[in-house]
Structures are given as C-alpha cells and as structure tokens.
C-alpha cells in the first residue's frame, strides 16, 4: 500500500476540479494597454503576519505580485509557474518543491529556496501560528536543501497539502528574506515578489497600480503595461463606471446587472460555477435546534425556487451539496429536503413546542431580501423569526465562531480540495466547528476523506458526508457558488473565476 502512495498523491494533488468547456477560440493576444478593475472591498496588504487573513481582493492583488508555484489552466491541468515539481516521500510526510532555476524578485535579487524556507518558518512561528493553524494543517517546518529545493515536513499525512501551492493563497507570498527582516511595519504595504507585475503605487482607499515586472521569468505571458485595482464599494456605481468606460471589469454584480449585461452588446458576462455554496448555519447546540426534526422542518418549509427568482433574479443554481454538477466530487442523489410545508408542520407538531428563532444576516440585498423570504415561509408553518442585521466583518463572524447565535447566513468557499471545506467546519472535535454538530457518521466520512490517499475512497466519503448532511441538516443550503464578472468586450483571457477570483496575470486588451 505504501509503495503506491507516491504516484496516487500526485494524481490527487492536481485533480481536475471545476472542469468546464473552453469558450470560443481567442484571437492572438495583443501587448500593451491598461486594465482597470473595480473591487468591492479593499486590499488588506501583502504580509500574511500583518493581515492575518486575506479577502478576495487581497488574494487577487497578491496573485499579480507573487504569482504561484503552480497554476491550473481552464482544463484543470497543472501548469508549472515558479515551481517545476512537487513530490512526496512514500509515507506522505515529506514534500519536495523544486523551484524554476534563475528566478528573480522584481527588485532584481535572486529568488531562492532559502527565501521560501525563511518565509514559511516565519509563518509557522508558534506565537503567531494559531492564526494559520487551519490553513497550515499538519505542516511542521520548511527547510532549504539547496538554492532551488525546499523540503516541507508534515506531522501526519495530509492529502490536501499540495493544494496550498496550487491556488492563489496569501500563505505562499514569499518576499526576499532581507526585505522581510528589514521592512518592519512597512512590509505589508511594500510587496516585492517574483510575479508578472509589481506594485508601483498604493493610494489607500482608492486604488493600487501594478506595472510589468521586468524580471519575470516568462515575459511572453505579460501582455498589459499596467493594471489598476480601484476600490468602488457601491454596486450601482460599479456598473455605471463600466458602462462609461471608467473601468474595464468588475466582479460580484447584482443579479439584475447580469441580466442587463447579457442583453447589452457593449458588455461581456464571465460566469463560473464553483464548488461551495451560500448557506444558513444552524447552531445545533442550542434548543430548539438540538432537535433534528426542527432543523428538517426549517428546510422543508422553504421554497428555494422562489428565493432563486426573487433574491437572485433567477441567476444561479440551487445547491444540494457543496459540490455541484461541475465538480468531480459531485454526488448526484444526496436527498436534500424538498419543499413540503405539510411535512414541516408535521415535524414541528411532533416536536411539540412553539419555535421562535433569530436569523443573523448582513444588511446587504443578497442576504436581507432572502432573509425576509425565509421569515415569511417559516411564518406559514408557524415559526416566528426575528432577523438580526449585523455589518460584515469580525462583529458578524465572531458570534458564529463562539457559538453565540441561532441561525446565520454564511458562505462555504470554493476551494480545490473538499477537506478545506468540511474538516474545520463539521468535524466534531474541530475548534472551528461552527454548527457544533457532533455526528459519528459525518466524523467518519470527514476523517476518511482527509487521511485516505485513494481518490475513489475519498469521493465515496464525501458522498456519504453530503447524504448525512441532508439528513442531519446542520446547515441549510442556498445557492451553488456562482461567480460572475462583467467586462468590456476589449478585455480578453480571463481564466475560470475559481473561488470568485479574477486572475489578470495573463489578461490582455484591445486598444481603446
């Protein structure tokens, strides 16, 4: 068994995820020009120890400056970037990363295995590590073997580990050792990376400008002279700015904007259905939700097609598990509760006590409108719902992490490996078990999925997981993670928006 582990792990690590047919053949790329992209939130910075987390905007900006060790093309194939190979020892405890020889940082300094090892050791520093405990999993240490070889040592085998090197991820943003040591508090705002673009100007609250990195290893892939990321928090303003040509692209449009843009020859819609879903978390540790019948009743009472129509303007796909039809982890029949108000009433009658609940949402249209729908559906089966509106950010997240909530609207992220989605949030002994579910069947499935190195075993485990979730209902599923961007027709070569990220690394534009 052990002798087989190596090649199998390779297969898992770069499994095809979110496979979609390619669009029409793209014309020859043109060089030059500028892309302006509007963002919905601000870039936090480029130093993991300072930012401690990375929102989507931060991840996109970092992707330009630091690029990746490996990327996936639209077919899901692994493409080497800063790295050329990643192999594991037969026991799965030691991984060896080979770097592309001759890499340079944008400031001209050589990019070596020592910089990579130094960066990981800095992140793994025990006094800070709790921030990244979930993300760094069983990783213990990183050691530079020579200038182009880094060895990663794990505490126990971890199937999802190679994914760290495959996705845009703030943990792998390696800066020159010298810079990390001397820049002090400015490190966060003065990134130096080996990616295709380098940051040239940061206007806080306004925009960040990137220009071509002259030291990038692959100049053929650098088409744009300049990329500007502009913070534009108002959704209507973003759409107007696109139509007036102030910006070239924005993501996370409103449903009605997608509908409008589809009928507008001057605009282009980019769409991607990822894994993950929008959800309503249920705190299973407090009454009445400690009774599974109440949780099931909540699900049966909802007509999700109405939500799709009203809350999302009919744009999107209803989720029955975290992995939709596009995903290789998709499980066709999980038995997610159908709309059946009579059944909901019967379950509540069986439960026997009146049910009054509090639903935590953010004051955004995408949450508050569906929340009101839920309220009225639940009203019909005799559940009284109070909607509690809390602005997004720590004040929204912390009560859920502490278990100080009843129901909360949430999002399960689109990530390349299911382990990231299920282990922390649903394993009974995990510190981040947000629904407080303690279910032996789920635990068994999660554990198997995490430890096994056999793809088929893992697929079956995650199928079991989805079916048990549909029975236990620790979360209500809403929409499959659908990602949209609207662009001007001049923008080309935007790859699949995995995790909702717009990757501009190899984009190009027609001249204005």
């Amino acid at each position, binding site marked *: 068994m052990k002798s087989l582990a190596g090649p199998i792990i390779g297969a898992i690590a770069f499994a095809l995820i979110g496979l979609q047919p390619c669009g029409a053949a793209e014309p020859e790329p043109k060089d030059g020009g500028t892309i302006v992209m*509007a963002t919905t939130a*601000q870039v*936090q*910075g480029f*130093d993991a120890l*300072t*930012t*401690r987390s990375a929102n989507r905007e931060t991840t996109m900006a970092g992707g330009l400056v630091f690029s990746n060790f490996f990327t996936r093309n639209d077919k899901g194939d692994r493409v080497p970037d800063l790295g050329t190979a990643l192999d594991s020892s037969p026991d799965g405890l030691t991984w060896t990363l080979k770097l592309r020889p001759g890499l340079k940082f944008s400031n001209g300094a050589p990019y070596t295995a020592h910089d990579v090892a130094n960066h990981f050791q800095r992140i793994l520093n025990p*006094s*800070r590590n*709790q*921030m990244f*405990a979930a993300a760094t999993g069983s990783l213990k240490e990183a050691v530079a073997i020579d200038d182009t070889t880094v060895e990663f040592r794990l505490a126990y085998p971890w199937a999802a580990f190679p994914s760290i090197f495959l996705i845009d991820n703030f943990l792998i943003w390696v800066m020159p050792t010298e810079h990390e040591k001397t820049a002090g*508090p*400015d*490190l*966060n*705002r003065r990134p130096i990376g080996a990616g295709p673009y380098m940051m040239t100007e940061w*206007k*806080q*609250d*306004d*925009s960040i400008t990137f220009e071509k990195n002259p030291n990038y290893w692959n100049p053929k892939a650098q088409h744009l002279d300049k990329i500007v990321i*502009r*913070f*534009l*928090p*108002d959704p*209507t*303003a973003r759409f*107007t*700015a696109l*139509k*007036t040509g*102030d*910006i070239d692209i924005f993501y996370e449009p409103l449903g009605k904007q997608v509908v409008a843009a589809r009928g507008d020859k001057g605009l282009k819609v980019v769409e991607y259905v990822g894994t993950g879903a929008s959800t309503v978390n249920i705190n299973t540790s407090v009454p009445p939700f400690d009774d599974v019948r109440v949780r099931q009743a909540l699900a049966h009472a909802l007509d999700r097609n109405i939500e799709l129509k009203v809350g999302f303007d009919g744009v999107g796909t209803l989720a029955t598990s975290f992995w939709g039809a596009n995903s290789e982890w998709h499980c066709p029949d999980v038995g997610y509760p159908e709309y059946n108000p009579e059944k909901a009433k019967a379950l509540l009658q069986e439960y026997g006590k009146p049910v009054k609940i509090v639903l935590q949402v953010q004051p955004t249209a995408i949450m508050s409108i569906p929340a009101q729908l839920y309220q009225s559906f639940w009203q019909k089966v005799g559940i009284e719902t109070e909607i509690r509106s809390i*602005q*997004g*950010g*720590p*004040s929204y997240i*912390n009560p859920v*992490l*502490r278990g100080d909530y009843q129901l909360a609207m949430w999002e399960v992220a689109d990530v390349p490996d299911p382990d990231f989605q299920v282990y922390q949030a649903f394993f009974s002994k995990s*510190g981040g078990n947000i629904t407080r579910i303690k279910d032996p069947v789920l635990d068994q499935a999660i554990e198997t999925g995490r430890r096994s190195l056999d793809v088929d075993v893992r697929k079956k485990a995650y199928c079991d997981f989805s079916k048990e979730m549909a029975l236990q209902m620790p979360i209500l599923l809403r929409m499959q993670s659908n990602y949209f961007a609207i662009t001007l027709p001049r923008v080309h070569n935007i790859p699949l928006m995995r995790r909702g990220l717009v990757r501009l690394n190899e984009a190009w534009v027609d001249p204005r």
Partner: protein
Amino acid sequence: MMSYFLRKLLRLGVVLLVVAAASFLLMTLLPGDVALALLGNDATPEAVAQVRAELGLDQPLLLRYLHWLGGFLRGDLGRSYITQVPVMESILDRLPVTIELMLLSQGLALLIAVPAGVLCAYKAGSRIDQFANAVALLLLAAPVFILAILLMFLFALKLRWLPSTGYVPFMTDPVRNLAHLALPALAIALAEWPSLFAVLRADMIRTLQQDYIALAKAKGLGPAFILFRHALRPSSFTLVTISGLQIAATIAGALVVETIFGLPGIGRMLTGAVYNRDMMLVQGCVAVISVGYVLINFGVDLIYALLDPRVRQ
C-alpha cells in the same frame, strides 16, 4: 475685536484638550480586547499577553493617555493594528479629499441657496417663491444617494460630460480633479441647499420688514443693492450656523457620496476602520474629526463677529 478673538482662542484650546481626552477614553473604554481581535478567539493566553505588551496595552491607563496625547500633539497617532500604516499618514492622505469635497459642496450649496433665498424673500408669496419652495421641499425629502445616482446617470452615463467615479488629486491635474469632484459636490449641495435656503428666506423676510430697510429704500437705493448690501448680512446668522453644522457633518458624513463616487475620503476610511475593529485608526479619525468640528465652530464664532459688530463686545 482682539479681546473677543483671544477669548475664543483660549476656549478653543481648552475644548481641544477635552476633545482629545474624550476621544482617547472613548476608544479605550470600549469593550473588546484588541489582542483577541487581532489573534482570533483560539489564541493562547501567552500569545495574547505578548501582543498586549507589543501594543503597550499592559500599561496603566493614565500613562497610555499621556503617551497618546504626547504623540497627538506631535502629530503622531500611532500605527494601524491592521495595516501597520501610520494613522497620521492615512488621515493626511484622505483629508484633502474630504476638505475639498466639503468646501466645494458647501460653496455650491451657498451659491444656490443665497441667491434663491434672497430672491424668494424679496418676492415672498410669488410664483417664483412657491416654485423654489416646492423644489427645495422635494430635494429636502430626497435621500442623497438617490440624488447621487440620478446625477451620475444623467451627467456621466447619458451626457458623458463628467466621469462617473474616482478621484485625481488637485496637484496632479486640477481640471480632472474638479471634473471628478463636480458630481459628488453637486449631490451633497443639492441635498444641503434647501435648509440653507429655508432659513435664509425666513430670516430675510423678517429683515426686510425692518425700518432700516425702509430707510434704505427711502434713500433711493436699488433693490439688488438693498438686498445684498443691507439685508443679507443681518439675515445670515442662522445661515452661518447651519452652514457650519453642514460643513462639520461633511467631514464624516459624506460617507454615502464617497461610497457611490468612489472617493477616498475620511468618512469611508472611518467606516472601514470601525468594521475592521482598527482601533488606532478609529481613535485617530475621531480625534481629527473632533478637532475639525471644534475648529469649524471657532470659525463660525469668528464669522458671527464679522457679520455683526455687536457680537464683538
């Protein structure tokens, strides 16, 4: 005049000290541990203690206040816990945007409100007056974001006269700077002029019944001269008060307009800092905004004295 100025200046100093202490205490006494907010809820006690020591949170309150006040007086408000950027640097970045927006919008509002208020007071009860009052009432009821979006739709999207969003510093390109600020300033001005108009009109109608206006007429002076040279100044007290309040409110209150037009102003930064629990930044913003309020009030007091010689005594 000098003694009035000195008296006000002395009071200004005292108020500023109180404001500084209040903004420090406000943020310090708020519940919630900064270290926990930074490290997450799973943080070990040792890590929390280490971060608290790094931030100086383990020192006594008074010492921390004196330290903070010393920095405040030197213009050093510390560094943001979240981005590590010096707070003063962030504020100085945004302040020009906010001040420019504040002056432009209030200037525009006065430019609409003063002639309209004077004319309508002069022609009180006429068609023009009724029309202006109806428009003012309508705009007073319209939320500023509706005005902002309508203006953007009309001038940016349909007519393409002005850019829809964004900001260019004045020193980089004055023309583009004004083009970018025109719509935001107009949106605020449209929302603010009705109250200025209403108080000026009411005060002006009262002034126009005064004997000294009758005397001015009896001197053979023309209506424009009488309205602007005789009646406007004595009618401007409430106007100046409201204008001062509106200017002060624009420092932190232009949030909606800043958000829609993508302007990097203080209001948006403060809101962001609150959501991120970026206490140092919030504290710095609150201090600077409070100082702004106090300075504007000081300015309003000085304008009172300029308007009416009787105030100076």
